[in-house]
């Protein structure tokens, strides 16, 4: 069993294997690598310094290998793909991948939400609409990926972090930008032309789209270069403006996501950014791009929240369950400032503190549970959590009251028998 998701950084085979020399340099410089600290032992061959001219030539060759192959943008009315082409094989594998996804337990099968996502994507895709299919996958990470066959995968962790339709439209537009530019084909050709063929084959042998464990292999195809990401950002912003959305929301989403990325423990494998690394540079660029342009003002937070309302508690639950509390704490602090779902955001903040259980967390949890139960739409589990915390602190009378209230509000609670045994 693996804990959490493999890191995108770890899995970005392309970045790692763009050149063995770069890889070697990074390893040698890495303080965490034991071999970097170990002095050469007797008998260990010491590499001779390379002469400068051959070294430059070698670097030039490696850089050539790293260059992304150029491909033409996809046509809105795509012609039948030549069966012998690279793209035909890749699309065939992606089609197989997509058909496996249709059976995955991680696929979110909420008809209204899927319809909402498809309609929004269609508006953004314009003439490309018939070629694109959106699939929502239950994964508590910030990610969306566009396959070369028109398969657009959105993870629920992304929808949890999005605050309105304008932000979602930017992300979808960005992915459509990758599709139109055929970035994954270029990436595939690059993988095949360098020493990363094994990674590419692993990807195609993969499957298991919903599993966090497969993220590593899958994300290899989507580890686009900075220029490709910038171009996709520009495409997303263009679509945002075309539909009258406020394009400043894109930079705000990236700023929020960057705040989470900053507190990520680099030693741990898990990241919420599966294939799209957050960075200050990207946030600033998006913010800058939105300045001085006559853009729309539509944000559309209400329709967005109406569409995701039925699923959002599950996603918050998944977010707590991934047990990366430093990031979750930043996320929930932001969500609690939103003028909606206040009871849920307070409740899940309390759950996070209760489960983290560091010094002082139980008190913070009690405070947040109490904030949650002030709202009429608080879930019954808020009283349960409050009772569990009070019980931990030995405040048994208060705990009994809270747990009794929980049972009264949740007559079919799955843990009723245990709590009743405590109350007796």
């Amino acid at each position: 069993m693996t804990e959490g998701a493999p890191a995108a950084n770890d899995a970005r085979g392309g970045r790692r294997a763009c050149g063995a020399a770069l890889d070697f340099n990074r390893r040698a410089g890495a303080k965490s690598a034991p071999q970097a600290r170990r002095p050469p032992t007797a008998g260990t061959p010491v590499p001779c310094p390379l002469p400068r001219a051959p070294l430059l030539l070698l670097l030039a060759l490696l850089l050539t290998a790293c260059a992304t192959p150029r491909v033409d943008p996809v046509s809105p009315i795509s012609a039948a793909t030549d069966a012998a082409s690279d793209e035909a094989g890749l699309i065939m594998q992606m089609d197989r991948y997509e058909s496996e996804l249709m059976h995955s337990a991680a696929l979110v099968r909420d008809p209204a939400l899927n319809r909402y996502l498809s309609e929004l994507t269609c508006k953004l895709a314009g003439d490309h609409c018939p070629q694109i299919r959106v699939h929502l996958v239950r994964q508590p990470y910030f990610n969306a990926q566009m396959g070369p066959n028109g398969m657009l995968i959105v993870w629920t962790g992304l929808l949890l972090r999005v605050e309105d339709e304008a932000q979602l439209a930017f992300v979808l537009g960005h992915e459509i930008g990758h599709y139109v530019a055929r970035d994954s084909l270029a990436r595939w050709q690059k993988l095949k032309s360098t020493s990363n063929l094994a990674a590419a084959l692993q990807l195609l042998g993969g499957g298991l789209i919903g599993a966090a464990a497969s993220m590593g292999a899958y994300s290899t195809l989507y580890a686009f270069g900075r220029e490709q990401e910038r171009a996709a950002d520009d495409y997303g912003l263009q679509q945002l403006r075309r539909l009258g959305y406020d394009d400043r929301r894109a930079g705000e989403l990236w700023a929020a996501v960057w705040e989470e990325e900053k507190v990520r423990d680099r030693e741990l494998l898990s990241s919420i950014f599966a294939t799209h690394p957050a960075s200050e540079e990207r946030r600033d660029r998006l913010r800058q791009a939105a300045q001085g342009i006559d853009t729309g003002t539509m944000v559309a937070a209400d329709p967005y929240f109406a569409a995701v309302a039925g699923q959002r508690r599950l996603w918050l639950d998944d977010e707590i369950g991934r047990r990366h509390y430093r990031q979750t704490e930043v996320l929930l602090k932001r969500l609690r400032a939103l003028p909606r779902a206040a009871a849920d955001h307070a409740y899940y903040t309390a759950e996070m503190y209760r489960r983290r259980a560091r010094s002082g967390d139980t008190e913070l949890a009690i405070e947040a549970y109490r904030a949650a139960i002030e709202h009429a739409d608080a879930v019954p589990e808020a009283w349960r959590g409050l009772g569990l915390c009070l019980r931990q602190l030995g405040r048994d009378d208060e705990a009994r009251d809270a747990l009794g209230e929980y049972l009264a509000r949740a007559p079919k609670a799955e843990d009723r028998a245990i709590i009743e045994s405590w109350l007796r």
Partner: protein
Amino acid sequence: MSRPDPCCSPCGSDLVSRAFPKNKSSRHKVAPTGAARRCLLGLSLALLSACSSPLIKPGAQTVDGLALRTPQSWSDLGFRGQRLWTRDGASLNALRIYTDIQPGEHVFRARLRGEQDEGARFRAGLSSIEIGELIVEGLRASGLSNVVARDLRPASLNGRSGFRAELGFDTSAGLHYRGLLLAEGNDGTLSFLLYTAPAEFYFERDRATVESIFDSLAR
């Protein structure tokens, strides 16, 4: 689960290499003597026997300190503190028996990456409900979807008060599983039995057997 499979340890490899020198290019190949051949044969049999999974026979058993009774036989694919009993293979039926998980250890003894790793660690003083949450989170973290615990109720395990629950989850391939859980963490360490099987056919087939094992621990 990061522990090495005890079946495949390279025990005795040194003896094997001595019996058959690796230097194939030697012009004077050394044929094993009769004594060496017998020794090698005996050793191979011993190794083969070590690599077979022990059969748990029906009746009373003491498993890592837990005194239980099983009405049917099982193959044990696990090791001390982390047993994996199965009849038809772990994906079709698996009774996992974890004992003496210490505070700070991962609930499934998965590898944790340092102090900062906030994986599903056991803590002393957790209530039954919190232990149930931890096991659910450990299962989720292994890539399973829609993991739920139902019908939690008090039960005892080896004389200590704990709880039972039913579990449900889906694999990434979309196969639905059900499970039974008996756990206790009252003495500052965590022990639990977790039975999992596909909901279709296998779960119900062995349910009564597993419940009778759980019942045998309710002393």
